[in-house]
């Protein structure tokens, strides 16, 4: 029971941390000043959400671990984030498509997690939901602006949507842990978000004059620790300093 809860909390924390780290790579490289600031603000929200979750994991774990242990001392196979979160930034359309699909999921997920029987998770969901609404609006507006923009921006946005689409399957399917946590009234079934997710995505893509991909093949593995080749490089950069200098403080 404790083990299941720990794993469930860590998975969500990992998704927030990995996506937050990816977005932080844009710092100083945003296409315009306001966007640079927006991406880093959102990155900070993801990081903050991951911290709340890791702190809770440490409390559940009870082995005198701290939030930093989970972020910096675990290897790729221990991370349970959705694959979509670890995808490289690519061009701006890729970054926006990645956030857009994830934000729609987060919005629906936290809306339901607010009712969790686990009071801490419910509180984290309540807090996160307020922030995610701003994230969704940001990514959705950019999907529309780029999709319904110039010929070139339209083509690039469509290409990004098509490419990242294959990583959305995981957001909408359940594994044994999702089912068990839902049975206990703690977790949310991703499959229960499917219709709402699809409707929201469709509404935005229509507005953006973009086509909804028809592909039915989806990449999976993130939740069970089988990742793309990209995660290892991300962790190497993120974990290098605390692993090399475990006594370092700031």
């Amino acid at each position: 029971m404790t083990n299941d809860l720990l794993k469930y909390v860590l998975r969500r924390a990992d998704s927030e941390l990995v996506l937050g780290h990816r977005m932080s790579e844009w710092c100083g490289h945003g296409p315009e000043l306001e966007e640079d600031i927006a991406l880093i603000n959102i990155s900070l929200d993801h990081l903050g959400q991951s911290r709340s979750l890791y702190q809770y994991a440490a409390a559940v774990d009870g082995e005198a671990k701290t939030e930093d242990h989970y972020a910096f001392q675990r290897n790729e196979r221990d991370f349970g984030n959705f694959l979509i979160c670890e995808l490289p930034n690519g061009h701006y359309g890729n970054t926006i498509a990645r956030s857009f699909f994830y934000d729609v999921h987060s919005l629906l997920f936290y809306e339901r997690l607010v009712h969790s029987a686990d009071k801490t998770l419910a509180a984290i969901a309540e807090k996160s939901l307020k922030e995610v609404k701003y994230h969704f609006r940001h990514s959705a507006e950019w999907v529309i602006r780029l999709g319904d923009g110039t010929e070139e921006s339209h083509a690039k946005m469509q290409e990004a949507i098509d490419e990242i689409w294959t990583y959305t399957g995981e957001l909408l399917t359940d594994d044994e842990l999702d089912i068990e946590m839902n049975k206990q009234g703690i977790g949310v079934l991703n499959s229960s978000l499917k219709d709402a997710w699809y409707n929201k995505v469709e509404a935005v893509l229509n507005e953006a004059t973009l086509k909804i991909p028809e592909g039915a093949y989806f990449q999976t593995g993130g939740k069970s620790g089988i990742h793309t080749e990209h995660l290892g490089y991300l962790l190497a950069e993120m974990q290098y300093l605390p692993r090399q200098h475990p006594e370092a403080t700031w």
Partner: protein
Amino acid sequence: MTQLGQKESEIFELLKAVKDPEVPVLDITDLGVLRKVEVIDQEVLVTITPTYSGCPAMEMIEQEIVACLNQHGYPKVKVNLVLSPAWTTDWMSEEGKVKLKAYGIAPPEKATEDKSALFPEQKKVGCPQCNSKNTELVSQFGSTACKALYKCLDCQEPFDYFKCL
């Protein structure tokens, strides 16, 4: 906020010395970040809530609460962080809003706007410099997580808006 005993009220007053490091005209009672003060035996338990999950000011605020109370003869202080009920800009005091505007940041409007709708009607935000309502949103994300960027179309000044949450 619960009814406070005399000692708790005194501590509450003392904590007005703790400012938001990002917006130093506001103290933690103006912001609504300070939720509860309890004195149990000789220990003071202070409950605070973050404005945003990733707010980098929280640690500094915690340290300053402890330092402030230590200085005033309370050696045992514990700061407790709660997430629920989630902080909202509606908790900002009226006094805080006045201070914010005088500082050049437009205070938050009532937080009822539905941000999950794609294009909800944008609130008209008043320019803190010239009071004109003829203003325009530049970006939902500003210099800190809690602020948005606006510009005034009359006096042409850009300004920060403490956005609704």
